[in-house]
């Protein structure tokens, strides 16, 4: 019994220590932005990489999600003659939840993994130590541009994903399910509030930060050559995905909870 309690205690303190290390890493990354030199070109490069090059994958997932959502809600709502709610359900689901969550998860897989692999490779090949010996702060040069890019880019991506997702629902609704296009658009617009979109964009900023933070953190602390870099990549994607879903619940509670 004591051995069991000891292992639970050790796991709990291990969790607290890991949380503390992650928080310290995030604060060091952000604090690096308080002092010059600044690297606007690096931030811009990360924004282009994280945003522009993620557009195809996020756009594709968004359009199919909107289409499936329209189909599923139609088949479900038709059981109690509520088909007219399809457009409203699609737009609210996409803007509040599915847009930010799906974009966050896709970017975690595409960008978070790449960040962890790139920084992890730099770690195991001494490139991060080389940065330090060349009078360059790795947090300012590597971590901060990625954190800022994550924070700024994902809301823009989600805005695009929202539009594409709603368009996907519209296409299925009007061409396959026989809705009148004007009525569908009216239904979409009538029940949509500013908070629905804004809450999704705030979530996106948080998710983007999480993706970049986990990519940088696990890459920065990778050890042991190719195997270590591979592990860092896995940890970055898995931890970012879990934190996205966890923070999504907390943010939803904060925005819409009773």
């Amino acid at each position, binding site marked *: 019994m004591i051995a069991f309690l000891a292992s639970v205690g050790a796991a709990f303190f291990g969790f607290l220590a890991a949380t503390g290390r992650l928080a310290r890493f995030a604060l060091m990354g952000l604090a690096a932005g308080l002092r010059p*030199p600044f690297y606007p070109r690096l931030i811009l490069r990360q924004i282009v990489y994280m945003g522009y090059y993620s557009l195809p994958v996020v756009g594709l997932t968004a359009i199919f999600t909107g289409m499936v959502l329209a189909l599923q809600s139609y088949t479900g709502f038709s059981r109690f003659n509520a088909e007219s709610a399809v457009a409203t359900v699609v737009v609210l689901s996409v803007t509040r939840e599915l847009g930010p969550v799906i974009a966050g998860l896709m970017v975690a897989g595409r960008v978070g993994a790449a960040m962890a692999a790139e920084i992890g490779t*730099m770690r195991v*090949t*001494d*490139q991060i*130590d*080389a940065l*330090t*010996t*060349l*009078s*360059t*702060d790795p947090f300012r*040069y590597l971590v901060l541009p990625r954190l800022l890019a994550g924070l700024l880019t994902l809301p823009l991506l989600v805005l695009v994903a929202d539009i594409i997702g709603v368009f996907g629902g519209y296409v299925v609704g009007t061409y396959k399910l026989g809705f009148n296009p004007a009525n569908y658009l009216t239904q979409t617009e009538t029940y949509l509030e500013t908070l629905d979109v804004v809450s999704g964009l705030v979530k996106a900023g948080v998710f983007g930060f999480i993706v970049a933070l986990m990519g940088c953190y696990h890459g920065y602390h990778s050890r042991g050559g190719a195997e270590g870099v591979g592990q860092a990549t896995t940890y970055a994607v898995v931890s970012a995905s879990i934190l996205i879903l966890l923070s999504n619940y907390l943010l939803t509670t904060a925005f819409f909870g009773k």
Partner: protein
Amino acid sequence: MSDGRPPKIVVRGLEKSFGRKRVLDGVDIDCAVGESLVIIGGSGTGKSVLVKCILGLLHPEAGAIRIDGVDTVGMRRADRARLMHRFGMLFQGSALFDSLLVWENVAFGLIQGRGMERAKARRIALDKLAAVGLGAEVGELRPAELSGGMQKRVALARAIAAEPEIIFFDEPTTGLDPIMADVINDLIIKIVREMGATAVSITHDMVSARKIADRIAMLHKGKIVWQGPADAIDDSDSPFVDQFVHGRAEGPIQMEVRAV
């Protein structure tokens, strides 16, 4: 090389552990101004850890490191950043930034670390590449397009680009063929003499150590077990040095099979 001036680098009682493994166990060593000190020792004896502690990349648990009489252990970040301007480092695996061109690698410390204008930094980078025997056309390549020997030369050019007072060489000839290793040794001697820099090298290549060292120290199990002039290495009266220099399996040095 001691000429009455205080040592450039002083290390006293340096201790560093990783988990339960004590890697440095009270290292005491000095390096005089303009001296080329080579630290030898088997793999895993703590040579790289010692250099990384002096550079400030690792934090020792105990002991003192003084550069020009200034204690650097526990130094503030801003002071550490200023101190880094005085250091150059050649890493074992070259550690070139593969996303940048060769000349950008060489000029990196000048542009990012010191805010130098790119055109001026590029001119300096090409001069340094020429100093290590590489033409301007190499500057436009990526590190991945270079051979191991050329990468080492580029790393050497990067280490000297800012004309540092102290240059560290981590296994400068490891992985190179004997001819290229000799080329790198000659370059190190030439550059260190021309710049008047203090050099600290770590290696287990005795040919290289004999060639580039003014003084040699041997590290074993986290302690300096012998140090003296390079030309005294064959008459050291140290069984550790004797076994290492002659590459014998039998002797007081027992190689650890497992890394910790």
